[in-house]
């Protein structure tokens, strides 16, 4: 037995050593500096206070009320062109709110924490808004933001940390939406920095929106909430797109031609406010606007595009630039491969690999290696959505590396010694014709073509349809729909990176392009509030759903309508270009150099609407 005095000494040593060791570390077990903010608990029920912008956030803003929003020319023209009747279009009826608007919307909110059940460290803060059931997840565990080619959502992807007395949140990957409910646009390139500060039962939310497409400078808004003691038990906001406007043409997208929005002047007259203020812009939110408004007269020229040089896209590049092929799981056994200058879709399974498009071919070997990480089965089928080089560039390499075991040992193989040697390439007949004309190698040509509307196959437990879209981008475009996975590969009919490449010389038309985009929308089903559900892989750009296609379709229709109106009035091509019919979309899709400029797009539309 140890003597009592020894035990006492041992206790003392334990205490001293314990104090020494523990005192050298932070009480949270983290490095002692810098001391992070302790944070605060956001949990509970919160109601928005509508003492600011009450009409905007309640009944709705008036048309032409963009004052204080630092929108640029493109944003102003987009808003002026906006007709609220657009919301009656089937695919807009359930549009949700984007995060910066959602935080200012009507309706209550609920916040709660998600903690690790063992360590109790904070993983995420959830914020649920009653209106449109907007659910935000603010990740607090230090995870990175997704890559540029990942999907966007109404709420975006948010990460947070406590700084000082605030919860600071960074948000990316937002969908296109609005800053005000009168069409003042928010682009899918917008990013947010937010600060939540709590003063007792009052919560003040500050958001700084940076939007290179539609804002001249960051937009700052602040919104108040007060804490509710109890659950009001009214959280749902159901929506379906059941409203129908009978007889409306599928290519009817309500909009106003530049300078012809009748309600803007009405607003200006009603409140005696000059256009230079109420049509927004960074200057409209500065104190000097008070004296400017007092001196300014009516200036309707702001309702039309300026004579400035066309703007170019301010969108962040989506394509990786590290020379590697990147894989993004899409759904089930379907994957997106990016990095070879054109999106590639890969379906894997026990029957073999099914590939939609093969990229430019510049990195075909790496594409093949990426496929090998997903499946050890041979590439059995390649579907080309078009003959264009960014769709077919890797055909030869991928075909040679594959095999179509389904035709070996058949009568077919008795006729052709090489039957099943290499992957089978499927495409519309016009793709084969175009590639033949381009003298592409035999191994790059489709070997299984179709002439009518649809080519179908059941592969890897999924029904796959190729749907010909006549005279869209070219005369041989197809959509590929994986029906079980519910993923649609669109080829270049839809991209998130540029105006549609309407290749008039090879059969493309704007009318066919609009029909093709509507065909995509005929097949999509959103999961909730207009997002999710059917996933859409564009030819270039980020993984999308129907909302991105709808906005893109709207853009093509609206530009078509403007150019058609100008053409019908007798405008020459040069006059049409000078009128800048794409002025509200150029900061998103425009280009003045490269293979597909805004002028080329305008010319393609002009030429086809005059037929």
């Amino acid at each position, binding site marked *: 037995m140890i003597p009592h005095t020894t035990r006492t000494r041992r*206790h003392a040593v*334990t*205490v001293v050593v*314990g*104090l020494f060791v*523990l*005192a*050298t*570390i*932070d*009480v*949270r077990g983290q490095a*002692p500096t810098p*001391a*992070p*903010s*302790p944070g*605060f608990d956001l949990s509970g029920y919160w109601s928005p*206070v509508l*003492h*600011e*912008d*009450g009409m905007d956030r309640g009944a709705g803003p008036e048309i032409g*009320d963009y*004052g*204080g*929003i*630092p929108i640029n020319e493109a944003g102003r023209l987009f808003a002026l062109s906006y007709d609220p009747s657009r919301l009656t279009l089937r695919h807009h009826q359930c549009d949700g709110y984007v995060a910066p608007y959602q935080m200012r919307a009507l309706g209550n909110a609920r916040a709660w924490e998600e903690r690790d059940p063992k360590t109790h460290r904070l993983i995420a803060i959830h914020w649920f808004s009653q209106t449109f059931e907007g659910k935000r997840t603010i990740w607090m565990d230090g995870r990175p933001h997704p890559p540029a080619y990942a999907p966007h959502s109404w709420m975006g992807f948010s990460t947070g940390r406590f*700084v*000082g*007395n*605030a919860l*600071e949140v960074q948000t990316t990957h937002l969908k296109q939406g609005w800053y005000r409910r009168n069409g003042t646009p928010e682009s899918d390139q917008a990013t947010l*920095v937010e*600060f939540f*500060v709590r*003063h007792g039962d*009052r919560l*003040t939310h*500050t958001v*700084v929106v940076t939007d290179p497409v539609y804002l001249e400078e960051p*937009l*700052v*808004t*602040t*919104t*108040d909430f*007060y804490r509710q003691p109890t659950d009001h038990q009214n959280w749902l906001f159901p929506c379906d797109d059941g409203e129908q406007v009978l007889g409306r043409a599928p290519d009817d997208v309500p909009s106003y031609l530049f300078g012809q929005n009748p309600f803007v002047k009405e607003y200006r007259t009603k*409140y*005696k406010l000059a256009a230079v*203020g*109420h049509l927004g812009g960074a200057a*409209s*939110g*500065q*104190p*000097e*606007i*008070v004296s400017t*408004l007092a001196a300014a007269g009516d200036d309707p020229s702001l309702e039309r595009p300026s004579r400035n040089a066309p703007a170019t896209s301010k969108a962040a590049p989506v394509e990786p630039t590290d020379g590697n092929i990147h894989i993004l799981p899409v759904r089930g056994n379907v994957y997106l491969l990016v990095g070879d200058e054109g999106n590639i879709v890969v379906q894997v399974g026990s029957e073999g690999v099914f590939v939609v498009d093969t990229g430019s071919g510049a990195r075909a070997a790496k594409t093949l290696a990426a496929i090998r990480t997903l499946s050890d089965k041979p590439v059995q089928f390649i579907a080309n959505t078009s003959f264009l080089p960014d769709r077919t560039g890797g055909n030869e390499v991928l075909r040679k590396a594959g095999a179509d075991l389904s035709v070996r040992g058949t009568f077919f193989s008795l006729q052709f010694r090489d039957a099943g040697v290499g992957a089978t390439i499927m495409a519309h007949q016009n793709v084969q014709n175009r590639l033949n004309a381009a003298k592409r190698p035999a191994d790059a040509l489709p070997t299984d073509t179709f002439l009518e509307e649809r080519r179908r196959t059941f592969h890897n437990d999924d029904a796959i349809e190729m749907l010909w879209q006549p005279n869209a981008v070219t005369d041989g475009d197809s959509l590929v729909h994986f029906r079980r996975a519910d993923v649609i590969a669109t080829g270049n009919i839809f991209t998130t990176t540029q105006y549609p490449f309407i290749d008039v010389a090879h059969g493309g038309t704007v009318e066919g392009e609009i029909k093709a985009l509507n065909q995509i929308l005929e097949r999509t089903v959103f999961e909730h509030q207009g997002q999710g559900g059917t996933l859409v892989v564009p030819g270039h750009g980020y993984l999308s759903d129907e909302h991105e296609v709808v906005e893109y379709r709207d853009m093509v229709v609206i530009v078509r309508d403007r150019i058609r109106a100008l053409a019908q009035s007798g405008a020459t091509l040069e006059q049409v270009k000078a009128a800048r019919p794409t002025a509200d979309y150029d900061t998103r899709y425009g280009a003045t150099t490269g293979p597909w400029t805004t002028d080329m797009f305008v010319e393609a539309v002009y030429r086809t609407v005059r037929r």
Partner: protein
Amino acid sequence: MTRSHVARRVAASAIVLVLVPVVARAQRGGFPPAPQSPRLAAPIDLTGYWVSLVTEDWRYRVATPPKGDYNSVPLNPAGRKAADAWDPARDEAAGEQCKAYGVGGVMRLPGRLHVVWLDDRTLTIETDAGTQVRTLRFGPAPTGVSDWQGNSQASWDRMEGAMGAGLLFGGGGFGVGNTGGGSLKVVTKGMKPGHLRKNGVPYSADAVITEYFDRFDLAGGDALLVVSTEVVDPTYLAQPFWTSTHFKKQRDATGWKPTPCTAR
């Protein structure tokens, strides 16, 4: 091991648990030092020039709205009656052009602020709109002659205080460290009656206005000042009137242009 040994070990462990946060805190700067002056104790720097960003209630702030247009303000019947009786000519005749530039309205007007420490216990906010000066005093509630800006009592509202943590747990308790963050809280009473908006939306001399000033630093060196305001007025408001108003930090006095009050 006897019960007394167990008890001693438990006691020793308890001492460790109690003292660790204290020691840890001491390593980060020791026990709370002797009280500093409010100026030295400031958790955030509000001084300098700030310009208002009028992105909300734009129509009501950049121009004088029509009489009777008090959308969003929770006026009670007496408040509506007073707003409907607004007569700027009468205010001018009475020399009361500054009604909208009082503490209840001046922060919402487009303009710039100049925030400076007058002394270690007094912060002042000058506004170029209406050429007003707000005096925010730390310490006991000030008294004095009632004017447009009233008597403002200031205090630092630190997160650790808001958390209600005690000294025993290092000012923060387990899992709660010191912050370095905080807000300026200002409570103002005793002001002359004025206007919440330029078109005569009223507040009375009985109103109590509580404000929180928060500073947020942004990447690139920009900073925002957000003033969250609550107006409680049993005379004219049916419920507290809440607004939050934001300003952007300026490097210098660019744009500073003091202007007189106007009633219209």
